[in-house]
């Protein structure tokens, strides 16, 4: 349910795994939310050509596990699947898919939003933006899984 690697993402498979296609889960979930992060053709006024994602994969997986545990304690009814892609991604391709399933829609939406905010905060993954005229590493959050202020900000975004 949690993975990182160069293979193209298959959102439908994750949806199937978390919803009624799985016999033992059939009837438990009432809502499945899928989030796809896609490569845009523009960023900060630049015309983007493609992105390259790099990861420290074993720690990225552990970060996903931590996020899944956080979600389990905050939204006990939610099940989540999360795959992140690495390597070169062209415009329009998906870099991340997050699927959350729950008995009710509010928890599935909130947990999905929480998951992407936390990935951006603590997963050791980097993107290099190749744009018209150059390339640049995008550097976002200082990764600190124990930063409770950051975690609460993700929770506020999820519950807004």
């Amino acid at each position, binding site marked *: 349910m949690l993975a990182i690697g160069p293979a193209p993402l298959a959102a439908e498979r994750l949806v199937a795994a978390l919803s009624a296609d799985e016999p033992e889960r059939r009837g438990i979930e009432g809502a499945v939310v899928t989030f796809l992060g896609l490569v845009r053709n523009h960023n900060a006024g630049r015309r983007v050509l493609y992105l390259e994602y790099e990861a420290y994969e074993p720690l990225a997986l552990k970060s996903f596990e931590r996020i899944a545990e956080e979600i389990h304690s905050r939204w006990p009814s939610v099940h989540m699947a999360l795959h992140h892609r690495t390597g070169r991604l062209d415009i329009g391709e998906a870099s991340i898919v997050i699927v959350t399933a729950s008995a009710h829609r509010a928890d599935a939406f909130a947990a999905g939003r929480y998951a992407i905010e936390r990935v951006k905060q603590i997963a050791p993954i980097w993107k290099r933006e190749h744009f018209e005229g150059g390339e640049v590493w995008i*550097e976002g959050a200082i*990764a600190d899984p124990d930063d409770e202020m950051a975690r609460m900000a993700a929770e506020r975004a999820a519950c807004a």
Partner: protein
Amino acid sequence: MRVTVRLFARLREIAGAAELARSVEPGATVGSLWRDLTKEHAELAQYERSISSAVNADYARMDRTLAEGDEVAFLPPVSGGCW
């Protein structure tokens, strides 16, 4: 003691390598290893206040004492997911 250093993204480019083998004295910490690296590659120093670190693929603090064979990773600010 021998340790392996893993560097990612811009840090990897500055050092010109994704992986380095280094010898450290007993009692060395993640922080002292980082300072050694900034002496080799002055450009790394700009990340002094923004790097995270991991030992054997678990997040670790800069005061963590190193052991023989440890894999120490230095991580610039992250940007996974989408924009």
